[in-house]
């Protein structure tokens, strides 16, 4: 049985008339990497601040390793935090920054030296101990912040969008390093981000948040392939939404003459239904070339967006609804707006939305 290290029970936090976090229930297990994912304003940072103790809940309790820490100030919670701006002390050297937490715990000098050296080695910054944070690049500062938070072996590591300030390449590099370090140290981690790629690649579980609530809490694959709510389906990955009526257990009619076979779940007969399908599942073929597939649906290209490795194709179906598809570049034949195309929509690729 996994041991719960972080627990939030019924946590609500209001800021004046705004309810930032609404009756949140969340458990993070020992050694787990959990991401809080959502758009700005969804309450993910507030949730992190509740765990850290920077903000008190209006209602509810917070437990760390079984202890009720609600009301306890941040310095007494034994956590490690990496801030989005890193918050390295500009007047202290890298060494002193990392040593800060150990000094607060009255560790003996020799031990401080040893553990700081270890921590700096862990983040590969050994030679930079004497420098000031201002002399380091963004990526290096981020690693110092990580070392500083880990050196005194806290119970939980909290990260508030730590990679947001880095450029794309550095971000991807750091992502890998972060995961490796987290696994090697085995520390329970809560990671706040608005970047779904980060969340999907780093997490053991993801909590997708919206308007102060958790929309879905599950492993990355489940979140992506079986989004539980419309919000999650929209937020994670791109998707197109098609509206129609269920005319059979496995058929949806978009407009008279245009039906789709859907294999997701038994459909409510006669009811209006909303289907989502991810662009990468949509096959885009040029009409007039090759055999027509029984599942193929005809349409016309209305927009093309070049993305480098792919081109996103927006196709209008009979009846006016649009579907997004992706074509790998370089495309076999050149695409143009108004071109007729044939779309393959695999029945099992559809997600039925609530």
């Amino acid at each position: 049985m996994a041991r719960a290290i972080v627990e939030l029970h019924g946590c609500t936090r209001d800021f004046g008339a705004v309810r930032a976090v609404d009756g949140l229930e969340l458990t993070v297990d020992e050694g787990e990497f959990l991401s809080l994912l959502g758009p700005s304003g969804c309450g993910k940072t507030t949730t992190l601040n509740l765990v850290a103790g920077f903000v008190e809940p209006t209602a509810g309790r917070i437990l760390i390793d079984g202890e009720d820490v609600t009301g306890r100030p941040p310095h007494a919670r034994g956590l490690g935090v990496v801030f989005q701006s890193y918050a390295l002390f500009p007047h202290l050297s890298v060494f002193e920054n990392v040593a800060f937490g150990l000094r607060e715990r009255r560790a003996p000098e020799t031990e401080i030296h040893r553990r700081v050296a270890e921590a700096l080695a862990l983040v590969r910054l050994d030679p930079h101990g004497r420098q000031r944070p201002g002399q380091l690049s963004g990526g290096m500062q981020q690693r110092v912040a990580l070392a500083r938070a880990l050196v005194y072996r806290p119970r939980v590591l909290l990260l508030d969008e730590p990679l947001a300030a880095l450029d794309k390449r550095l971000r991807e590099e750091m992502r890998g390093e972060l995961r490796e370090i987290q696994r090697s140290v085995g520390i329970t981690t809560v990671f706040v981000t608005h970047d779904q790629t980060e969340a999907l690649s780093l997490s053991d579980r993801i909590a997708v948040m919206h308007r102060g609530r958790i929309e879905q809490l599950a492993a990355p694959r489940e979140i992506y392939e079986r989004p539980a709510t419309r919000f999650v389906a929209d937020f994670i990955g791109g998707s197109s939404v098609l509206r129609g009526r269920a005319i059979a257990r496995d058929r949806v009619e978009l407009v008279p003459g245009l039906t789709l076979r859907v294999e997701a779940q038994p459909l409510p007969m006669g009811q209006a239904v909303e289907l989502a399908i991810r662009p990468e599942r949509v096959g885009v073929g040029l009409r007039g070339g090759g055999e027509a597939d029984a599942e193929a649906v005809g349409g016309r290209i209305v927009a093309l967006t070049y993305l480098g490795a792919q081109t996103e194709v927006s196709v209008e179906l009979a009846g006016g609804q649009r579907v997004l598809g992706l074509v790998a570049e370089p495309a076999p034949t050149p695409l143009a707006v108004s071109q007729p195309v044939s779309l393959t929509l695999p029945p099992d690729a559809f997600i039925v939305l609530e």
Partner: protein
Amino acid sequence: MIGRVVIALLVAFMTLPTVVVVIASFNPTAIMSVPPAGLSLRWYVNALTYPQFRRAAVNSLVATAAAALLALPIGTAAALALERGRLRARNLWTTLLLSPLVVPGVAAGLGFLILAAALGLLRSRTVLVAAHVALVLPFVARSVWVSVRNLDPTLERAAASLGATPWRTFRRVTLPLLRPGLIAGFLFAVVVSANEFVVSLFIVNRVTEVLPVAMFTYVVNYTDPTIAAISSLFIAATVTIVWLTDRFVGLAAVFRLDR
């Protein structure tokens, strides 16, 4: 081009009197002439040995030191409270803190004199120090406030997350980072208090007289260049302090001209 000349003239106008005073201080005779007929240090000797100046200088030193040392923690506390405290009456507090700057010197001076009489403190230095603290506090608070504004509050959260209690956070993080504002504030306090004249004129007597008041009395009664000598010493001291403040903090930042 004309602009440069005009500005040079104006700057010369602003600094001319100071130059004249310094030159006159070396005048060998009591009758002032600039340029002087020769060079002499006799007036410096006179200034430094004049008993009333010596007593006044000591009084100034004590009063200024006391006022500056008191105003610094009070002003720092106020700056922190105003910037971080999320007070509803913040504007009111700011106005109150800055109010001594607005009151005419003679009104404040007379008021403090009346207060001293009412408290039976006419012969003591207490009211003088209290008045100086009140007059100097706005400058200190403002200087420190500039530093507080530039202080990233996330740093204090970081310290807390690392296990530092609020007091230790203040000592290890906040205070070191406030240093420029604290130094500038202290220097401001010293300069303003050392030069304070109008209010002090009302409150002091011959025993508690501070240096500017002693100088004033001298000028009213005598016309020899002793006053030029002591003025030169005064100028040297205050220019040094102003230069020090610029080196440590950058005056442009303190007066918010670098936006």
